[in-house]
């Protein structure tokens, strides 16, 4: 079986596996990183979001071969030690979770958005998080968390941004 090399949360990883296995399953089953969730298997709910070279992707429809040589960040790698990423902290402070199964995907897509657009408009938030499903329908709290993260000090964000790259 072919070998794939990439980094996950800053750590070099090597996996021998079938090239068309979804990245999601390699993360969860081979690397025991279960923070990334299966939701639909068709890239339609975004629970499985991870960052690949800084961009949010649906790992359930991303074959592992696509990750060759890439830099992957999962929800487990977003905090720097004990210090949470400002988006994680905002989700906690705003109570932006009920069952929490969608939270990893929501947090990562928000973190990626704020990297690109530090002060997003409402339309940009809708665009960036469109298709991230929360079946508990905690959307009002999630929106509040995105806004809270967006107004936090640039210094806090700058410090955190190293984690998403």
């Amino acid at each position, binding site marked *: 079986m072919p070998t794939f090399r990439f980094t996950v949360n800053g750590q070099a990883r090597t996996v021998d596996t079938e090239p068309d296995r979804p990245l999601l399953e390699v993360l969860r089953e081979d690397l025991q990183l279960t923070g990334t969730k299966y939701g*639909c*298997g068709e890239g339609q709910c975004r629970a499985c979001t991870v960052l690949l070279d800084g961009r949010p992707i649906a790992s359930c429809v991303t074959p592992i071969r696509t990750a060759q040589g890439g830099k992957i960040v999962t929800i487990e790698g977003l905090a720097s030690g004990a210090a949470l990423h400002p988006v994680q902290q905002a989700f906690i402070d705003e109570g932006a979770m009920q069952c929490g199964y969608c939270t990893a995907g929501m947090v990562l897509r928000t973190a990626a958005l704020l990297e690109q657009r530090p002060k997003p408009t409402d339309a940009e938030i809708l665009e960036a998080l469109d298709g991230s499903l929360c079946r508990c329908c905690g959307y009002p709290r999630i929106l509040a968390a995105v806004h809270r993260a967006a107004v936090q000090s640039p210094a806090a964000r700058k410090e955190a941004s190293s984690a998403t790259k």
Partner: protein
Amino acid sequence: MLPNDPREPERFELREGPLYTFEVDRRDFFLTLGAGLLVTVYATEAGAQTVAARLHLGDDGITTVFSGKVEEGQGARTEIAMAAAEELGVPLSKVRVQLADTDRTPNDGLTAGSRTTPGTIPAVRQAAAAARKALRQPSEWTILGKPQWHLTAREIATGEHKYPSDVTREGMLYGAVLRPPAYGATLESIDLDPANKLDFVTAVRDGDFAGCAARTSYAARKALETLTASARWKTTPQSSTPTLFEDLRAKAKQRVEPLAGKTHAAEFRTAYVQHAPMEPRAAVAEWSAGKLTVWTGTSNPFSVRDSLAQAFHLSTSQVRVIVPDFGGGFGGKHTGEAALEAARLAKAAGKPVKVRWTRAEEFMWAYFRPAALIDASARLNAQGIIESWQFINYNSGTAALQTPYRIPTRQEQYIPCDAPLRQGSYRALASTANNFAREAFMDELAAAAGQDPLDFRLAHLHHPRIRAVLTAATERFGWARRRKEKRAPNHGIGLACGTEKNSVVAACVEVEVDPKTGAPRLLEIVEAFECGVLLNPANTRSQVEGCILMGLGAALREQIEFENGRLKNGRFSAYKVTRLRDVPPKLDVILLDGTEEPSAGAGETPILAVAPAMANAIFDATAKRVRALPLRAV
């Protein structure tokens, strides 16, 4: 849970004052908990004593609450911790909550029917108060009644929390289960050899069950493909969406005489919808020394334990079911399918096995919120008063079947049907259908009487709590003023109210209707809700918002379509649940603190008002009556 079971899921109730028992030597608990005091509150039901709550007060200052309830996002864990901390007079950080482990927690029955707040919380408070020898009054509360987000928020935000589908065991395999191609199909033959010849694959058939386990989900899917290729099925003709409601009427178990002297009648329909929790059904099963342990996401841990014991010819003491906080249920996880499947595969493979349903499996083989066909008719007199009322629900159930309005002569009945799909509980059960039909029909009667919808309701409404939420919602919304104002083209306003599970709700909405498609868009909602004394206002508000928006999905689009027993739209790309773009620009929740009432649950009743309020607003906008969910002005 039986389909069409009209009974509310309710397993215990504190009908008498609880008895306090102090146990100082419970070996199984002290093994893991260390020294301390164990407090158990018993409830007596039908002459039998059941454990209602159990607290361990550790010598290390940590109190552990044991409850058989589950956490699926509704906030039970945090609320239970708050109740114990409040009564013990200790900070929240000194309380741990052990939920839903059949070997360690008392049997609290099913987590459903908004029963945790009125049932479990008083028992936990009693147990904690017994330790302190005094029960605090709400006016003395310092923890309960204050906003508190989930205690597990940090674990969730960092990905550390282990959901049932995240549980991993040493040497664990991944399972895949062969599904029939359609409802009613039975397995005639299958060849397991191609799968069993694959490396590290175990395939098994046992009656109608067939599946396989492999070292990765990918390998399990590949093995499953060989099973699918060789499986021969016997199929029978099945129902299809276009004839669903005619079929329900034809298959009704009883005929009803029409209401004598009726002046108005209407038929209402609500579609089959799927709960579609973000985490599909999942279980990890492990056999060890004749004992079976299963980690799974279910609202009914003890019932799943009993099912496993029955299926594998074990005693219940040989089965342990552990329920990690799981990814949503909404009434859709009262069963234990994945637990049984994982256990069967693990038995065959001799290793622990995880089964996590695919989204397609969850859409098709989990049970549905039943479709409803409702006949409503009434006799309205010349003074605009409803004299008699007939309301017949076919297929969906009894919840909120009875009108809260004062009407002298009433006939309200639920009639079961032979249902074409597997159906069961849903958030707020049949009240979603019954309240939709009733509140939409009340609006029709108000118009027929030439009255304002609010005035017409109030004229028939003596229920002080519903009147209070109606008043709160309509005043905040500016109902009286906005009724007199000219609406923008295709814009309309509407209202609805309701009660269920000892809580009350009212909502006012403004919608805009797309003149081409007839589809509504929710622009504004003001919803007032009251559920007695508030235990955790932050969580209650989240539940109310979540209910409104979940109800919005069923009002806008959600509708399971099937053809000859096969699902046509069983995926998120085709079955469109509520998404961020659907959130109305104005969403205003008013929580009335009903200090005169005991605390009731908040995770269900707030779903009742949005759909009928929108139907009524569509009429205001278009003069077209909409009598079906999802809503379309056609």
